[in-house]
């Protein structure tokens, strides 16, 4: 249980399941529900199978994809692994392009391949966090097999121009994977317009269940992918394991709701985010990390001058937000994503990601502004007068 007074502004870490989604899930769990194995041929199994296929159509609908292009996985981590390693296993030893600001699931899949004969190029984005098409173009080689660039960054909310990067890849005959865990349901996606070959999704970033994900595999790319989990041959042999009906029904309903509510929710969140930013700016010496406009609506990543990162986090512990970790001399480190944007470790640690979502209210935003302002002011007042960098300090 979260404490009653706690304000949840960590929707990019995970979202609660929407009650409407939870209801659908509950109907697939117990004896009186759709609990059977979707692989069983009896009537109960076929009812479960129908629910699974309906969910597949809903997930496809949010992306403008065909249902057959959706593969169920256990989350975006697995989707990223399947996409990247699955492509490389099919065509080993070639060159792969990605960026330093990708999620660990992409970076560690790439690191694994680097240990196993692939060559990797890691793009470093500009200070605004954007990976540009021309950077990608500059990194492509004769033997490039795959480019993996995320849609929306999970720490800053910065949006990459997937359509342009995809067009480039297609022109050069290179496969293109996109980690869209943070964009689905937050900004529009249309695979008919975006020349993407593989795209990773996670249910728990848009009010569906944790432990459930999907991989979009463009029809003509299916055969270029090797399964990573072997067994019963589910999901056209690309992902074995009993299908988790309740989880699948959950992701389906979550994607359906996201599709219906996307436009309205984008506007609402953008408004709340501006309100938060305006409130925090009054503190002075507060800075946005990442591109100030090219960002998904729910994200605000800011750094505060004049306070220690760990103290800021501890002072704001009633606020569920994301932040770097302890000080330089302990083993913990500031975010590697923010470091890639040119921030010092201390700056990265004094940064906080506010991520807003479906249940965020104006009152919560106002309370958050008040708590942050109170604590930042208090900590700044506690600090020695000199030598503590405020806005004047160029580096901060």
């Amino acid at each position, binding site marked *: 249980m979260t404490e009653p007074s706690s304000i949840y502004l960590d929707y990019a870490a995970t979202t609660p399941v929407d009650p409407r989604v939870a209801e659908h899930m509950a109907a697939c769990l117990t004896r009186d529900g759709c609990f059977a194995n979707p692989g069983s041929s009896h009537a109960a199994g076929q009812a479960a199978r129908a629910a699974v296929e309906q969910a597949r159509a809903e997930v496809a609908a949010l992306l403008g994809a065909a249902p057959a292009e959706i593969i169920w996985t256990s989350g975006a981590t697995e989707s990223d692994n399947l996409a990247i390693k699955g492509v490389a296993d099919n065509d080993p030893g070639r060159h792969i392009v990605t960026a330093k600001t990708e999620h660990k699931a992409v970076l560690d899949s790439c690191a694994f391949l680097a240990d196993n004969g692939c060559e990797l190029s890691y793009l470093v984005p500009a200070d605004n966090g954007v990976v540009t098409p021309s950077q990608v173009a500059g990194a492509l080689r004769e033997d490039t097999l795959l480019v993996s660039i995320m849609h929306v960054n999970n720490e800053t909310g910065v949006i990459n121009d997937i359509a342009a990067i995809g067009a480039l890849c297609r022109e050069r005959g290179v496969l293109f994977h996109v980690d869209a865990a943070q964009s689905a349901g937050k900004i529009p996606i249309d695979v008919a317009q975006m020349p993407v070959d593989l795209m990773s999704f996670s249910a728990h970033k848009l009010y569906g269940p944790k432990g459930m994900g999907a991989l979009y595999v463009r029809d003509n790319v299916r055969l270029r992918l090797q399964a990573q989990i072997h067994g019963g041959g589910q999901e056209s042999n690309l992902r074995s394991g009993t299908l988790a009906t309740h989880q699948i029904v959950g992701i389906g309903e979550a994607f359906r709701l996201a599709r219906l509510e996307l436009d309205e929710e984008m506007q609402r969140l953008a408004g709340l985010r501006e309100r938060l930013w305006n409130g925090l700016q009054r503190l002075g010496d507060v800075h946005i990390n990442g591109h100030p406009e090219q960002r998904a609506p729910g994200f605000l990543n800011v750094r505060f001058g004049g306070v220690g990162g*760990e103290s800021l986090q*501890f002072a704001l512990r009633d606020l569920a937000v994301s932040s770097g970790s302890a000080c330089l001399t302990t083993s913990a480190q500031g975010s590697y994503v923010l470091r890639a944007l040119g921030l010092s470790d201390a700056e990265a640690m004094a940064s906080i990601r506010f991520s807003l979502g479906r249940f965020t209210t104006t009152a919560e935003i106002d309370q958050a502004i008040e708590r942050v302002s109170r604590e930042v002011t208090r900590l700044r007042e506690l600090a*020695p007068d000199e030598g503590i960098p405020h806005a004047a300090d160029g580096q901060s």
Partner: protein
Amino acid sequence: MRYSELVTDHFEHPRNVATAAGGRVGRAGDRRRGAIVEFYLELDNGRVASLRFRAWGCPHTIAVASWLTGALADREQQTLLPLELDNIATELGLPTDKWHCILTAEDALRAALEEKDS
């Protein structure tokens, strides 16, 4: 990171914060290493008459400095250093990787003792 009740209390309600200059000032730490502590020490007849602080860094740094201002009140100048690091760490429930926060405070205290009255 875990914080003991005592650390939490001193972090939330720091004692003896120096709101104005006065006494010997000792400072240690730097921004790079992640902690700065300033002590403002007044001695009277070889005893601590007033000890106040300012600090920037992690919660432990702030709590240690705040706690020391109380623990060392009235103490004889001679007995101030070295700090009993073990005891302080135990008393405040400091994780082992946080001992350097006490060292910063010790350095600041030493600097204050070495300082002439200002």
